[in-house]
């Protein structure tokens, strides 16, 4: 596990607003993000995946996980306010939205989400002003990467 963490290429930016890469999108959107991040710290190493971390002015931190094949296979965010979910989830947004609706209809009362959908997993935790969200494409998660690393 330690070796894996050490092998990550981490890109951190405090610039805003983040133009997110999109879940399921390719590296081009990430490159576009990177071009926006003048002066951002960047550490490149051989990696199982590349982690891009962006902090917006709202205080919410967005993390994007890119596979060696250049695909965004997971997105996560943590903080007080929702980021633009449509932009973040891209073509998976409608599937997410339908599942949220179905979940609500099945269950009166508030609880964290754990949506195990075909080709998409969405999990949430937290409460107002303290959220954590993760979405990933199980089939595209690189071998050896564990769900709990995607945060």
């Amino acid at each position, binding site marked *: 596990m330690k070796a894996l963490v050490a092998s990550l290429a981490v890109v951190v930016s405090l610039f805003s607003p983040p133009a997110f890469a999109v879940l399921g999108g390719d590296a081009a959107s990430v490159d576009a993000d990177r071009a926006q991040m003048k002066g951002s710290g960047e550490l490149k190493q051989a990696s199982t995946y590349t982690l891009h971390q962006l902090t917006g002015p709202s205080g919410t931190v967005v993390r994007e996980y890119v596979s060696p094949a250049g695909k965004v296979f997971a997105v996560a965010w943590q903080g007080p306010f929702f980021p633009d979910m449509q932009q973040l989830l891209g073509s998976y947004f409608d599937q997410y939205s339908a599942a949220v609706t179905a979940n609500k209809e099945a269950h009166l009362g508030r609880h964290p989400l*754990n949506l195990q959908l075909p080709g998409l997993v969405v999990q*949430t935790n937290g409460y107002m002003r303290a959220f*954590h969200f993760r979405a990933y494409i199980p089939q595209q998660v690189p071998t050896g990467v*564990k769900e709990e690393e995607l945060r």
Partner: protein
Amino acid sequence: MRKATERAISHGLAAVTVLSVFGLLAACGGGGNSSSSPPPPTGNNVQALSVNGGPAPGVNYADAAFTSVTVCVPGSSTCATVDGVLVDTGSVGLRLLASAIPSLALPELSGSGGTTFYNCVNFVDGTYLWGPVAQADIEMAGEKASTASLQLIENPTGFSVPTACSQGGINLDTLNDLGANGILGVGSYPQDCGSACQNSTSPDVYFTCGPGGPCSSQTISVSQQVVNPVVGFTTDNNGVVIEMQSVDGEAASASGSMIFGIGTQSNNMLGSATIYPINGNGFFTTTFNSQALTESFIDSGSNGYFFPDSSITQCAQNSIAPGFYCPSSTLNLSAQNAAQGGSQKTVNFSVDDAVNDFNNFGSDSAFANLAGPNGSTNCGSGTACGFDWGLPFFFGRNVYVSIDGQSVPSGAPAAPWWAY
């Protein structure tokens, strides 16, 4: 879309009705017990609570605590009292269905150019609330928050809720969808947004809209934001104590009190309660199954214990209790919460088969052993896992919720923290 939603909810109601019949039969067999409890506290800062299924006709909202709130046109005696308001330590601000106060015209708050401020709140399950910011004198027990901002939950006319608010979620804009006439957020922050919304339009919390749209996010001063009503009280304004009776298994209802203030009167002293500091991200650490769940929290607005444990069977998605645990027999578990000073305090709790609970006790509203999953189950260092201590945790306890930035009793650390 809307039609489909309503149809599905109708099915849900039918199911609840059937369950209620079973529940009555079960009650004849003697199912359902509630423990005795000490007499409720008294005082001008004591607000009665009830876990009673809520105000929505034909809907039994399990493990949710309700109260009544009086709102008045500021500075007047023109008021309305709304019952069936969910008491939520996991959010901030009063939010009332506009349809619950049809005859009370509260003044709406205007931004630059005289246009109404709209407020948006998103919840962890993807649901959201939208509506204009209004101002009212908010009264509970003997306390009053004068000219306080609140949200009126109301679908817009002439335009749609912006996607920056809806975020793919579902609008709880009706009594049946919300299961309540409103939400009373008495959590650990003074406003629903704070300085972030004063300094930036990046949080999509406050909007102004053209008559036919579109809406755009706006900055708003902290003092104009939807406020934790407790902060607006002239006294007893540093937090709340929620005291619920204990529940042994399940009960038709459960009663309790919300006491305003912490250490401000003889009925809200900390006494021997232990303090659990809340970190900068809004969480504390719960250790469960030898794993540190670093994003844990206490939330009366969650209707169960929600925690990661892959060894517990989850109820079927097509059952009457999706999202809950369904172990084959009741599990007796424990976890440790990180207290002030680094000590760990054990909490014992039990997990029932939620489908059995709802089937056998369909007319009951208070369930001590309702629980469900929460995210990943491998929660080692550097991962993001949490234990959501929902309403069952409050049964048989006095839970203190202090508010960020407010005073604290002598000797206590700076807010925010929980104590119990």
